C-alpha cells in the first residue's frame, strides 16, 4: 500500500502540469474560435510561402 504514498503526489504533479498547459492554451486564444481550425486539415499546403515563415 505504501506505493500510493508516492503515486498520489506524482498524479498531483501531473495534474498541475495539465492545468498549466490548459491555462496556456486559453491565454493563447486557442479556445476563442472553435470553428475555423476544423478546416485546416482540409487545406493543401502550398510551397509558395511568402516573405516570412510560419508565424504561429
Amino acid at each position, binding site marked *: 500500500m505504501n506505493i500510493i504514498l508516492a503515486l*498520489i503526489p506524482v498524479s498531483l504533479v501531473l495534474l498541475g502540469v495539465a492545468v498549466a498547459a490548459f491555462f496556456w492554451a486559453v491565454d493563447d486564444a486557442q*479556445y476563442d*474560435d472553435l*470553428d*475555423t481550425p476544423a478546416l485546416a486539415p*482540409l487545406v493543401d499546403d502550398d510551397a509558395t510561402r*511568402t516573405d516570412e515563415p510560419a*508565424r504561429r
Partner: protein
Amino acid sequence: MPGACFHCGEPLGEGDALFATIGARSHPVCCIGCRAAVEWIDGLGLADYYRLREGTGERAAPADDYAEWDRPRLARRHVRELVADRAETTVLVEGMRCAACAWLIERALVRREGVHEATVSPLVQRVRIVFDPSRVRLPALLATLARLGYRPHPLEGDRIDALRTSERRAALKRLVVAGFGAMQAMMYAVALYAGAFDGIDPAVRAFLRWMGMLVATPVVLYAARPFFAGALREWRARRLSMDTPVALAIGAIYTGSVVATVFGGAEVYFDSVCMFVFLLLLGRYVELRARQRAGEVADALVRLQPATAERCTEGACETIGVHELEPGQVVRVGAGATFPVDGVLRGTRCRVDESLLTGESAACLREVGEEVVAGSVALDGPVEVEVRRVGPATVLSALARMVERAAAARPRIARLADAAAARFVVRVLAATGVVVLAWSAIDPARAFASAVAVLVISCPCAFALAAPSALTRAVGVLARHGVMVVDADALEALAGVDRIVFDKTGTLTEPTIDVAGLRVARGSHEGALALAAALEQASTHPYARALRDAARGLALPAIADVRETGGGVLGRFDGHTLRLGRPDFALVDGDGDALVLADDAGEIARFPIVERVRAGAREAIDALQAAGVACEIVSGDHAERVRRVAAALGVAEWRARATPEAKLAHLASLRTRGDAVAAVGDGVNDAPVLGGADAAITLGEGAALAQAASGIVLAGGDLGGIVDARGVARSMLAVVRRNLRWTLAYNLLAIPLAALGFVPPWLAAIGMSASSLIVVANTFAIGHPRADARSAAPAAAPTPLARAQPA
C-alpha cells in the same frame, strides 16, 4: 450551380460572358468585380476557399477608398500601439458567412507585408489584426478586405471586446480548475468511503485527507473567488442575494473539513465542496456564453454610422473624423451617403431615407431648417447640414445603448430562479443553525458533522442551473431553426400567448413585380424588359431579382454609370439617362403601385407591383390555429385587399385601414381583455405596435433596427419559425418548472434526513451531484422530438402531413 456566378452565385447575364480562370479550369462570373475577386484570391494561392465555403460570397464591389482612415486623429481611436513595431486593430467584417470566409480573411491578411497576426472570430464577425504600422497602414488592410468582397468597419477601441474575452477566458479557467479538483477529490473520497466500510489504516486515512485538502484549496481559493467577491460586494451594499449564502456554505464546509483534517475530526467533505463549486460555475459559464452572444446584436448598429464626414468652412471642404465635429459646424453630405450626425438642414431641401431608424421605407421630404438624424440616408445631394449633436448624443447612439442594455440585462426567468435559489439558501442556513443548536443540546460531538451534512446535501446548484441551462438549450435549438432569440423574456412571453396579431404587407405577403402585366409605352416588350434587367443587374432588391429572372435568355444591353439610390436605379444608355423606379422617381405621372422605366423623353414601360402571399404563411397560420392560438390580421391597407389575403389564409378576424395609433389601441384593448398577445411584423410602420405587444416577432428581412428592438427575429422570412418558437418556448417553461419542482422535492426529503444525522458523507455527495445532473439532463427534452419534426420538411413547402408525423 449552372448559370450562376462562380463567386457570388448571382444569375449570369446572357450577353456578356465573363470567365475567371483557376488553374486549368475557367469558371463563369457575373461581373468584372467578381472576376477580379476570383483571380486575386487565386493569385494569393487561396483558391481552396471555393472548395471549403458553405455559401456563396458577397458580390464583389469595386474597392472604396479607405485613405481617410489614415488620418492620425481617426487612426488613434481605432489602432492601439502595443510596442514599437506592433499595433493592433479590430475590424467588424460584414459579409462573413462561414468558417471558410474566416479562413480566407486570415490567410489573405497574413500574407500581406507587415501583418504579424490576424485572428478571425466568425461568431462575432470580427478580425483582430496585429501589424507593423511602419510597413503597412490601416487603409491598405481595409482595402484588402474590401477586395475579397467583404465590407470592413473598424471598431472604435475594442475595450468592450477585450473585456468580454478576458471575462470568458477567466470563467473557463475557473471552471476547469474546479472540474479537475472535483475529479481528484472524488477519487480520494471514494477511497475514504471504502475505508469507512472495510476499515482503513489511520495513517493512510490521514494521508488521503491531506491530499484532498491539497486539491480542494485552489478550488476554494481560486475557482470560487467570484462567489466570495460577490458576497463581499453584497455585504458592502447591505443586500442579500445568491452569492452570500453560497460563499457562506463553501466557507463553512471547507473550514470544517480543514479542521477535521488537521485535528482529526469525524468526516471531511473536500469532494463535495469541489463538486459544489464546479456545478455552480458551470451554470454561470453557460449563462455567460448565452448573454455575450446576445450582446453582439448591438454591433449591428455600429454599421449604420459613418466614421468620417466632410466639414465645410468658408466654401472649402475637408474630410475629417466624425468625433472631431462640434455642434454649430457645417458638414456636406453627398447623394446616397449616410448622415454622420444629428443636425439641421441648410440651403436646400432633401429627401431622406430613414428606414433603418424608423422602419418607414418611403422617403420623406425634409425642408430647410428641419432636423435630420445620424444613420439616415440623403437621397438627394449634396446637402449641407448644421451639426446639432454628435457621437454619444445622437438618436442612433441612444438606440444602440438601449439595445445593449436590453442585451446585458439578465432574462426575467433567470432572475426569478436566482431569487428562488437565494431564498432557499437562506432557509437552509437558518435550518443549519437550528440543527447546530439542537445537536449541541443532545450530543455536542455530532453538531458540526450534521450541520455540514445539511449544507452539502441541500443543493442550490440545481436551482441555479435550472433556468440558464433550459434557456441556453432553447435558444440553441431555435437558432438551428432560423429563429434568433434577441430577448429571452420574449420567448417566455411567447409560451403563454393565446392571440397573434399579424401585419399584412411585408409580413404575410410580399410585393413582387407582375412581369406578365407589363405595359409598354414605346418600343418592344423584350427591349423594355432587357433594359430594366440590365439596370437592375447589380441590385439585391427583390424586384431586381424578379426582373432578372424574367429577362433570362434575353441579350442584355450594356448600360453605363449605373447608380442605385434610395428611390430607384439610374443609368446611361445610348446618350439618354434611364430611370427605373416608382413613378415620382422616374419623373412620370401615375399611382405608386408600379415600377416605371423612363428615359429623358418619358415613359418606356410600366411594371405593375402586385402582392402575393408569402410561401409557408398558410401552413404556419393553420398550425397556430390548430394549436388554439387565435390569429388576426391588422393592416393599414384597403379593406378589399386585406379581406382577400385573410380569405386566402383562412383567417376570420381582420381589420383594415388601421393607423399605427389604431393598431396600438387595438392591441391595448386586447391585452386589457386578458389576452396575451404577440405581434408579428416586418418593422415597416410596425415598430410601436411591436413594442406594445407581450412578445414581438419580426421577419429577418425587415428594417435592421426593428429587429434589434423586437424579441424574436425570424431569419429568412419563414413564418413557420413562429410555430417552432412557440413549441420550444412552451417545452422550455415546462422543463424549468419540472426542474424547480424536482429540486424542491429532493431537498424536502434530504434535508431532514441529514439534520437527523442519517446521511453519511458519501451519500450526501452523490445526492448533490445527481440532483444537478438530472436538472441538466432534463433540458435535453427541449426541442426534441416534436419541434424538430417541422424543420425536417423543406422550408419552402412544408406540408401539413410532414408536420403531423411523429418523429
